[in-house]
């Protein structure tokens, strides 16, 4: 598949995925450009890649994690309330906003190693096999991380959701 076509199809979901990893839309957009530049530079691999989507997300994950490392935010990523305030939802019912914020906060508090598989599995509907390819880990490791991610997410979410 042509890189331009890949960009057209996947830049939006990749940017959203990266945003959920790095918590910053502007950075996510910059990193998405970086992702597709790397895809372009490695385009000779495209034909031999078994699963192009997983391959692109693997690059996206690496780019996002690199950025996080650079920013020394591996351990914990704070919720960026300024972005929530900027979103144009003046008339969303308050309870829906509360629930969304609780979900976003819970997600943001997961370590990236857990957040990434949970996003890929729950957010994008990847299979375990695809998650394994995207993160370059074994399927067994995906299952373990997903279980831990879900439990941690649930605990944080319940705490966030408490009034």
């Amino acid at each position, binding site marked *: *598949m*042509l*890189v*331009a076509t890949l*960009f057209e*199809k996947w*830049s*939006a*979901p990749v*940017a*959203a995925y990266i*945003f*959920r990893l790095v918590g910053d*839309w502007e950075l996510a957009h910059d990193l*998405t*450009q970086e992702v597709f*530049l790397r895809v*372009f*530079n490695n*385009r*000779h691999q*495209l*034909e031999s890649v*078994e*699963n*192009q*989507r*997983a391959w692109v997300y693997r690059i996206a994950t690496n780019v996002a994690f690199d950025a996080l490392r650079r920013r020394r935010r591996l351990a914990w990523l704070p919720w960026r309330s300024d972005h929530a305030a900027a*979103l*144009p*939802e*003046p*008339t*969303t*019912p308050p309870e*829906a906003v509360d*629930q*969304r914020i609780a*979900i*976003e906060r819970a*997600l943001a508090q997961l370590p990236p190693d857990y957040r990434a598989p*949970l*996003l890929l*599995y*729950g*957010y*994008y*509907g*990847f*299979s375990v*096999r*695809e998650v394994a390819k995207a993160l370059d880990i074994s399927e067994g490791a*995906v*299952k*373990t991380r*997903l*279980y831990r991610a*879900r439990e941690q*997410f*649930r605990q944080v979410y319940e705490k966030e959701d408490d009034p």
Partner: protein
Amino acid sequence: MNQHQRVSELLAVYRDLTDAERREVEQHIQGCPACAQKLAGYRAMDRDLANLKARDQATQTALQPNARLSRSLASPQTTRPRWFGWMAHVPGLARQVAGIAALLLLTVGLITVFRGPPSQPGAGPSIPPTQTPDPLEAFATRVFEPEATPSVEATEIYGHGTSATPEPELPSSEKIMTICFAGEPSSLLWPQDDLVTDAAMEAMQEPLIDALNYGYRANLVEKLPSLADGDATLQEVTISEGARFVDAASDRVLTLTQGMTESFALNQLEGEPLAIQQWDGSPLTTVQQSAQWTLIEGLTWEHGRPVTAGDSVFAFNMALDPNYSGPDLFVAERTATYEALDQRTMRWTGLPGLFDPTFFINVWNPQPSHLYGTLSWAEIQRDEQANRAPLSYGPYKIVEWIPGESITLSPNQYYLRGQPPLDSVVIRFVPNDANQIVAQLASGECDLGLQDAGFEESLPLLRGFEEQGLLRVETVIGMVFEHLDFNLQPAEGYAGAAATLRDNQGGLLFQNADFRRAIAHCLDRQALIDQATNGGGFFQHTYVPANHPLHPGDEAITTYYGVSPDTGRALLGGLGWTDTDGDGLLDDGAGTRLIFDLATRQNPLREAATQIIQAQLRDHCGIEVNVQMLGAEFFAEGPEGPLFGRAYDMAEFAWLTDAEPPCNLYLSSEVPSEANGWGASNSTGFANPAFDAACAAALNALDPEEKAARHTEAMRIWTDQLPSIPLFARAKITVFRPEVEGVILDATNNTELWNIENFDVNR
């Protein structure tokens, strides 16, 4: 690890279990309520995350490659296949021919491709990205390559599908449908009154009431109001000085004032309208209608705010803005009140005197009053969001609109019928070229091509694709019917054949019903349909098609005109027109030949149809016809316009039929003239009191049996007198790929997207 812990971990990947794991989980959770609860929690967690994704993607601005990436993408590796550019630059007719030729070539090549390539084993279809593929080869590869088999066996459990990976192409598990339009809406601002806007808005603001199968169906209101149910009323009211009312004679809104000199008529509960020549100031009685509707509970705008009756009232109020112009203006102006009774209930009350048999559809589709309630219509017309991204309460909402390219839609999480099956809908614009759309359907770039493409000319090709299982073609009798009008009442000063040719009794030939019947017998309308529409038309005998619920059946329409040149010639001979000089053409024996003009609005279908008519009349009956292909002036209002100025001999054009048979088109009151400002429909000049009476009674009847009987009577008179020869109903044609599910083409709904919430792709 004990079994409970093992099952707990399996629950975290509940979509990806093997059969053995699934059995283990099912057995375990039967005795473990906490595990069942955990599974439900994980599924809810994934739903929340998926919703978050939809919102993330919807709130992003469209990402464009930056300068560095653009430079890379602009390298030769990313150029489109050569065939694309080749198709795009061949102009007009040549491109059509070239496109069809290419597709036919591919169709022929299809069998070979399916049987397997003759090349050596292992030679796969993939083309290295740095190599520009041969245009036809690339096309064929993309179109005909069998679907890749998923590499992981699908596991369906707990209601979720698997996301096993197809390879090597398009591995996304997202369900995206690309719908190709031949036209791009100029705006999505209400009211929508063209095909493409109507189609696009079905996804965001589907109507409260659907027109389906020549009837109406409550869609987002609980029911249609009716007199029998008590949620509609028809009662007698008294009007006096200052009252606004609807004149039954002219449908105009008048004000009752002392000294008014106009005559008028008032509808009555029983009997004929009361005719008033001059009002003497005493109170008058007439009728008044009202009806109420309740919005379905749960109807919600895309950001979570409920849709209210107030939103519907807001849309009505906008229709009364002096700058507003829309199809609902007629009813709005004849409305006494339109009010919200509570959060979900609206009530309409017509002006005194209005008698509207379809009162039950006089409801306004809601518009977001919380966004635009303080604006005038002129301000709303300038509002970017109202024009480009109208707020949705339908199954999908707008993510982005790239002018000249596409509109992208994502699911509206607040849609009251639940999440639609598709993750994304892309409306792509492929301007005015049915062949391009056919090519893109065949290649998979389009999943569905809408009727606005005009697939009639491509039907044989499409049928070929259909036979190969590559595409599906759906046709249904549409509401548009082509017909051949005779000018029975030429305007004063018109000197054409309709005003000069005479029968042997001295009467105008075109006014003689036998002349019109003779013309019908001289035509082979089925051959015309086959040749002009490639079989994409449906024969009809009257002004409604055969599948219309109020079509009385051929046996009830007493006059049927089959192809019979001998009968036609005999009828013409009886009027004094025979071939007296042996030149093969009819004449009156006094040196005048039977020659007249046939005018139409220029377009390919009508050009073909009129030329066939010309040939048939000459060959079958010796009648000479001059075809006049006219531009937009053909439909111009009278007295200047030829058609509605009654300055023509014979004309070919189309009318729309409806749930109510359009007999009103041929009422004597509808003959365009100075008296009615030339703004009327009956260009034939047909004036028949018995027909007028039957038609008026049919239109005003509330009792279904009475309505049907009166329409039958009107059609019987009309087909006997034949002021116009129905030619054919145009087929609605839509084309889609075999994996598309849920498309139901309806005869009376304007768009095939009326149930877009059910569309799915099964790739």
